[in-house]
């Protein structure tokens, strides 16, 4: 018990004094995960919308694949991205393994299916005739798509949050493709694993608290969105 209590006390101190290392790791984690979420939104959001609004053979299969992808184990993603980026691998020429770019790439692979799956559902739950209603008000195709996205903005926001929540808290991929290099590829999760391994529970607890606050915020916003009533 004493260990935990001491840990929490020192963790508070680290947070209160804005320990430069903890602050640096936090900001770096946010930067990497926000970038990865942004990329995933561009790819996954567009894919989800396209999938919701078109009909083609094999659509069901593709949707099942995306839904499976929503639960990809980060370690598996980490392994495949590592192989891809390995010096002799197909993307080895990029020379980005063990750099922040590699983490962003791996996290994008994790978050894209999550965002695509939720965006797909978000657009599908809009009334079927809404698309026609927008067109009949005089919208071009591009304006119609924008308008639909705006109508689905809350569930789309939920998609972004879910994607962000997924990547900020994963450790398997970051550690494999980033390598937890101090000052370069160390993120909240990999640092927590390392500090705990070294017995530095105070720092580990401080890092965990920050992660907890981040995930709590994400979930609070998600819950708020889900509980909101829908228009007629």
């Amino acid at each position, binding site marked *: 018990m004493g260990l935990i209590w001491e840990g929490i006390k020192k963790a508070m101190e680290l947070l209160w004094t804005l320990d430069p290392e903890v602050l640096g790791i936090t900001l770096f984690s946010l930067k990497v995960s926000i970038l990865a979420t942004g990329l995933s939104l561009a790819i996954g959001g567009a894919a989800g919308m396209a999938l919701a609004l078109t009909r083609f053979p094999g659509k069901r299969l593709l949707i099942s694949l995306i839904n499976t992808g929503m639960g990809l184990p980060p370690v598996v993603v980490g392994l495949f991205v590592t192989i891809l980026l390995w010096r002799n691998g197909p993307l080895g020429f990029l020379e980005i393994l063990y750099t922040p770019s590699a983490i962003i790439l791996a996290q994008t692979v994790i978050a894209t299916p999550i965002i695509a799956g939720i965006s797909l559902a978000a657009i599908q739950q809009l*009334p079927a*005739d*809404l698309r*026609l*209603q927008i*067109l*009949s*008000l*005089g*919208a*071009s195709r591009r*304006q119609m798509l924008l*308008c639909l996205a*705006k*109508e689905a*903005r809350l569930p789309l926001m939920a998609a972004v949050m879910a994607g962000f929540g997924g990547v900020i808290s994963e450790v398997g991929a970051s550690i494999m493709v980033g390598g937890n290099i101090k000052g370069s590829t160390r993120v909240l999760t990999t640092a927590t694993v390392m500090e705990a391994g070294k017995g530095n529970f105070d720092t580990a607890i401080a890092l965990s608290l920050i992660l907890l606050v981040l995930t709590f915020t994400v979930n609070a916003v998600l819950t708020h969105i889900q509980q909101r*009533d*829908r*228009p*007629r």
Partner: protein
Amino acid sequence: MTPAQAPILAARGLNVHRGGVQVLEIPEFELQAGTVLALIGPNGSGKTTLLKTLASLQEPTEGAILFRGQPLASRPGREAYRKRVTMVFQEPLLFDTTVARNLEAGLKLRGVPGPERARRVLAAARTFGIEPLLERQARKLSGGEAQRASLARAFVLEPEILFLDEPFSALDPPTREALLDDLGSALRQTRTTAVIATHDQEDALRLADRIAVLHRGRIVQSGTCFDVVNHPVDEFVAEFVGMEIVLPGQVTASGMGLCRVAVAGLEVEAVGSPAPGEAVLLGLRPEHITLSTHPGPATSARNSFTGAVTRIVPRGPFFKVELDCGFWLAAFITPRSLEELALAPGQPVLAAFKATAVHLIRTRHS
């Protein structure tokens, strides 16, 4: 006005297939500017599909649609057409924002400048009685309010053609009545050309100049309301339009819940309080009309007219006797009564019906 005026909207050889099944087959369709056309038919008769096709929201499998004589061929052509017409759906389909922004949405898409938008939004909101709701969130509106907002969002565009797909079918009766009245006067005031899909004959009579009856994807009859209702071409139309006799008339006097309506120079008494001078339609069912050859003992029938039998048609277990009393009437009688009255074409007969049997329909021409 030239007699051969070009229609504002026409369709030729329209065919719509869905999943290999033909859902619509309309060889010829024409709509004159300023006309309100009601498309009536049961659920699944193709009303919605026809509306969506005419509004260019759905591509026909075959056939052409012509707007002011020009075929809608290319995608830019169809987009330009959609900026000049609009459609109101069964569901209000409002955007998740304020009522004012909903009303403004189409104007923005059509590039109407800001100050004009504000002015037109206010005017349309007044027409539909939703001015106090403009700053309200659309998702907080009741069903009737939402449908009013949806209609206002269409009228504010001043569309050259307005397509309406049963916009009242989801509403409770009192809400629906009030909305029908407001929609009727909005259509009259703006002289908007409109196509309204409905499965309700009375809605059609109240709002439209012409009726087209749809059955299994085909227009089985089209014409003025009077023609379609009084002279159905087949049994389907007769059964679907229900009330068989519809007479146009003008109110001459009104009071104490009763009114007198002049029909072809004669006076019919009916229940209702329309304003004198108002043009109305009188609906009557043949089963409510009794026939006799001699003036009998006093009955409670307020209306009694002498006419000549024009035609006797068998109708299942009954006969339908058609009369000319100065206006057209029809009555159902049993084979035995037919024998007892010794009715034959050309013979004079007395037709009577109660004031309560007359269904007063206030029309868009009132």
